[in-house]
């Protein structure tokens, strides 16, 4: 689905990602691991068009993404849940979800109503807080809303940047279960950046490990989880 070849990207002329290549197969869940500052967020932002690549190719279903504005990337079927949640503070939970509606949502069976139901089922807390303004939500509630907005959009590919941040353990588990479920049922593809490697590797199919803007390891999640170096660095002793 997503094909990244020799991507170099960064800020103000200084590259963060160096010549990075990565593939996301249709219908798979791909996990990206890496230390703080490795460039994971930069990778996600480059895919979604918030950061302009300096060189290299980004192909979504064979069509180039590089140079597209963020809003056009969304139209191509990619939803990005950014690090730091970024819910709209002055809109209610419901309005935040309405704003995230895309053409794909409307076309899908059941349309927006169905999609909304799904989000509320996954995060009942959001349903309770339906009419509450974004800013006043607790940190975890905001995180749920951010993920909910991506689900409502019904994209082909969802980019999740540290979705577990600030989530309580139970919610966190049910979210990962839901990701697996969405993937199985609708065939939605996921690219997930996560500090909590253990959980991510549990649901993922493939994993990449980044260090200082470059890939240092890749393989099936099972292989990666077994790799002693990885285990030491990301899973904790």
């Amino acid at each position, binding site marked *: 689905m997503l094909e990244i070849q020799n991507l170099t990207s960064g800020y103000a002329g200084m590259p963060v990602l160096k010549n990075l290549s990565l593939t996301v197969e249709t219908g798979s869940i791909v996990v990206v691991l890496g230390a*703080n500052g490795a460039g994971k967020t930069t990778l996600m932002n480059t895919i979604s068009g918030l950061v302009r690549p300096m060189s290299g190719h980004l192909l979504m279903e064979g069509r180039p993404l590089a140079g597209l504005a963020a809003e056009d990337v969304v139209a191509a079927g990619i939803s990005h849940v950014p690090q730091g949640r970024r819910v709209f503070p002055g809109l209610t939970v419901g309005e935040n979800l309405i704003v995230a509606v895309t053409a794909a949502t409307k076309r899908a069976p059941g349309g927006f109503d169905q999609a909304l139901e799904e989000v509320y089922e996954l995060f009942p807390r959001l349903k309770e807080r339906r009419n*509450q303004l974004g800013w006043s939500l607790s940190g975890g*509630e905001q995180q749920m809303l951010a993920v909910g907005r991506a689900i409502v959009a019904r994209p082909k590919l969802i980019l999740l940047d540290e979705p577990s941040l*600030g989530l*309580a353990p139970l919610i966190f588990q049910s979210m990962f279960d839901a990701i697996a479920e969405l993937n199985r049922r609708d065939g939605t593809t996921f690219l997930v950046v996560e*500090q909590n490697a253990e959980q991510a590797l549990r649901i993922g199919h493939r994993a990449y490990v980044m260090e200082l803007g470059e890939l240092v390891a890749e393989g099936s999640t099972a292989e990666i989880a077994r790799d002693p170096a990885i285990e030491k660095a990301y899973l904790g002793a």
Partner: protein
Amino acid sequence: MTMVLDVSGVTKRFGGLTALSDVSFSLDRGKILGLVGPNGSGKSTMLNVLSGVYAPELGSVTLNGAAITGMAPNQITRAGLARTFQNLQLFGGLTIGQNVMVGRNCRMSSSLLGTIFGFSSARREEDEARETARTYLDFVGLADRFDDETSSLSYGERRLLEVARALAASPEVLMLDEPCAGLSQGEADDLADSIRQVAAQGISVIVIEHNMRFIMQLVDRIVALNFGQKIAEGTPQEIRANEDVIAAYLGRRHA
């Protein structure tokens, strides 16, 4: 064992929503208390009540036996309670060192005239504040960034700067809201060590965190909230085994 902080019967409502209802607990000198609970259970709200940002509808908070409910945040800080924020609140226009020195402000007393005309007492106090700031920046590992802009810090470093700023107020109680968010497990372990050192100096700590590994290894006691109510209190072992906490918060896997 002396009790430093006593929270009794605190209730806080937002419109029709009761974010905290009748919550009580206490904290002893030099102890570390964990505050856990599902998202939206009222943990941050509790911190906001303790630090004076929100006034509770009911209940009282005493610090060393003196009531602090209804006091302005700056008075509470002067009384000995300092905190960090879940959503970072740094002073972006100040350097890293100055951020920490603002934290020291509540322990400074020189007059306006004294600082403008450079009275020796005022200068001494300013030097002392700078030294204190350096000490605490050193403590969180940011000493060499004293004159840098805050914007040059990574997310994790910013959290540490907030800790240094809170410590500069020489608090009796330090309150941390999700200090590990965005940190890797290794960094979280380092932070836990630092917090233990703080506690060893006799400062009591309240910490909110969803990182169970961090919490369980660090704290002396845990208070668990759900829907604004206290559902359990005890040692980490007791909490880990508590059925209510498992059902509401931890899930089976963590138990």
